[in-house]
């Protein structure tokens, strides 16, 4: 600003010189200011539409949720596990739905976060350019599949498969996840342990024997657990596991896209600087690129989570909709019911007069979902901001 004024002032002082072309007549300047104002007002209006939409959603959902809380209170809603909305007298315990939503979302994140982040790192930093060009659109196609198609897949393909070969599916998934991880762990551990030995020859020998021994032990453990899992019988395939897997698949494109963008945004300079200091590719990735992109990666995870929480069709079709808390609570092999599926399933008939509380309880659930989304967003904002401050300080 100061620089501008210093440059501009001499222009107006020197009145003897011819007027520069850029200085406008009073009328034209006024018109221009008005146009700028109108433009700003228009853009401001457009920007505030989304804000107003959120506000109105809160107001209207809250207005229909209020009668429920007024007549039944909050305690039953949040703590009771008995959901009998059409019984006489009705019971509106929504704890199973909150638990179901949480369980299914956690399960989906367990699928989407490791796979999604690994895929993003692979796409942005490891795979050759051609492969990235080919793979990214494929991942994005996952986002374009309608959710009812996912639900159909979960109900018609996955559920019967889980019922017939549930144990084997679980064992295969366990092998796919645990075997590489434990083998990697064995290699790293043998490296670290043998590093304590004094002579180089002893180190090399110890590394090999320790590595092989640990790997064998790890494989034996994996095989034991795998065999135990293979013997599991699933009476019903429409359960939290099924839905978690499919929701994870649905959240995957969000997680991959956003985190890949975040990794790309780190820029070439940082990577080249890191290489210039002698870091390997792995060190560059783990010590420089991923920490620098971590706020974006966090946002990717939160966005994926919101996708999973808000999904309705798949859970309504394939979660079993049993209003229970699984025993034990983390047992994802049992059917569960989520908030979204309850709203979708009960909205049709919940009629204003005959089932007043039954109608309003759905809005109470909607309000809870909104609150959860709001809190998630606020949390992610806070994380991103703190991360940014930390990076700037470092």
């Amino acid at each position, binding site marked *: 600003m100061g620089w501008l004024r210093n440059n501009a002032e001499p222009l107006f002082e020197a009145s003897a010189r011819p007027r520069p072309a850029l200085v406008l007549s009073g009328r034209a300047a006024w018109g221009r200011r008005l146009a700028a104002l109108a433009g700003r007002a228009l853009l401001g209006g457009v920007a505030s539409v989304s804000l107003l939409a959120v506000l109105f959603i809160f107001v209207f959902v809250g207005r229909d949720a209020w009668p429920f809380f007024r007549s039944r209170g909050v305690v039953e809603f949040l703590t009771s*596990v008995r959901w009998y909305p059409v019984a006489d007298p009705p019971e509106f315990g929504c704890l199973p739905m909150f638990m179901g939503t949480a369980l299914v979302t956690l399960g989906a994140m367990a699928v989407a976060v490791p796979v999604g982040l690994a895929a993003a790192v692979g796409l942005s930093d490891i795979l050759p350019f051609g492969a990235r060009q080919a793979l990214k659109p494929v991942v994005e196609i996952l986002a374009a599949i309608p959710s009812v198609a996912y639900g159909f897949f979960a109900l018609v393909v996955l559920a*019967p498969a889980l019922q017939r070969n549930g144990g084997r599916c679980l064992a295969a998934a366990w092998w796919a996840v645990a075997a590489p991880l434990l083998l990697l762990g064995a290699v790293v551990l043998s490296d670290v342990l043998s590093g304590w030995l004094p002579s180089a020859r002893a180190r090399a020998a110890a590394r090999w024997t320790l590595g092989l021994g640990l790997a064998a032990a790890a494989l034996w453990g994996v095989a034991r657990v795998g065999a135990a899992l293979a013997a599991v019988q699933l009476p019903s*395939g429409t359960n939290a596991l099924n839905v978690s897997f499919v929701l994870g698949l649905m959240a995957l494109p969000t997680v991959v896209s956003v985190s890949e963008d975040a990794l790309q945004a780190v820029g070439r300079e940082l990577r080249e600087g890191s290489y210039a200091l002698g870091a390997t590719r792995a060190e560059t990735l783990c010590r420089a690129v991923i920490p620098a992109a971590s706020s974006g990666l966090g946002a990717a995870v939160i966005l994926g989570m919101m996708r999973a929480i808000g999904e309705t069709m798949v859970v309504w079709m394939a979660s079993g909709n049993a*209003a229970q808390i699984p025993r034990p609570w983390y047992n994802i092999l049992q059917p569960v019911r989520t908030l979204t599926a309850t709203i979708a399933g009960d909205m049709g008939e*919940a009629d204003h*007069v005959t089932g007043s509380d039954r109608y309003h309880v759905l809005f109470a659930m909607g309000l809870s979902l909104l609150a959860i989304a709001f809190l998630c967003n606020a949390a992610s904002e806070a994380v991103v901001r703190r991360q940014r401050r930390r990076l700037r300080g470092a």
Partner: protein
Amino acid sequence: MKSKGKMSVAVAAVLAAVSLAQAENLVIDGSTTVGPIAKAFAEYFMKQRPDVNVTVSESGSGNGAKSLINGTCHIATMSRPMKDKEKAAAQESGILPIPTVVAMDGLAIVVNPANPVQGLTIEQIRAIYAGNIKNWKELGGPDLPIVVVSRDTNSGTYECFETLVMKQEKILGSAEYVGSNGAVRDRVRTTTGAIGYVGLAFTEGVKPLPVNGVAPKPETVIDKTYPISRPLFMVTNGRPKPGTAVYDFLMLYRQPDGIKIIEDVGYVPVR
């Protein structure tokens, strides 16, 4: 089949008030279970008699009775007989409620075709759905956990099952809820240990079980030997006189087209 009622009662009341003021209106209010029949009848009837405007609302059997007693509807559709209290209230306001059974509603209890169980009693079904019987071996079947499948609490099918089978008991928490008769059938067809209940028209590919020794068939539903069945009523004020719109509408259930409509929406015509 028994589709979901969507009309709000506020709208229905306004419509009823408005339409009673004009002569050629026919207002029907009541059960969500009978609603599909009334709606399909109305559509058919208005094509035959363009001079009559039929309004159907679904506010529940109790509200249907109330509307008839208050004089805000011509026909109350009900999935249960009138209670004594309602009859007394009708008498007080000078209304003579005459019920007509227009169709029968029956539910088949279905299991997977691979399930060797040959039949159940009402008490056993209730115990299964209440969670007191959890394994098929308790019923002479294989050692297999029972997967309990129910319709969503919105449906007339659920309401029928709750009234006729569960009585005062509550369905166990781990029961799976699905959104349509077809979905119940699919879950039962693909799940070995599953049990479900569906309208009589939805037993293809699954095994309908005899209840108390009686197979679920239109004949056994009509002669009331099959226990999970109930009559569906249309209640009028007095016996409608031949020639009136109410009479013509009510008598549709006896005509071939009306019988076909009743079968199409998934109920058993009384013939």
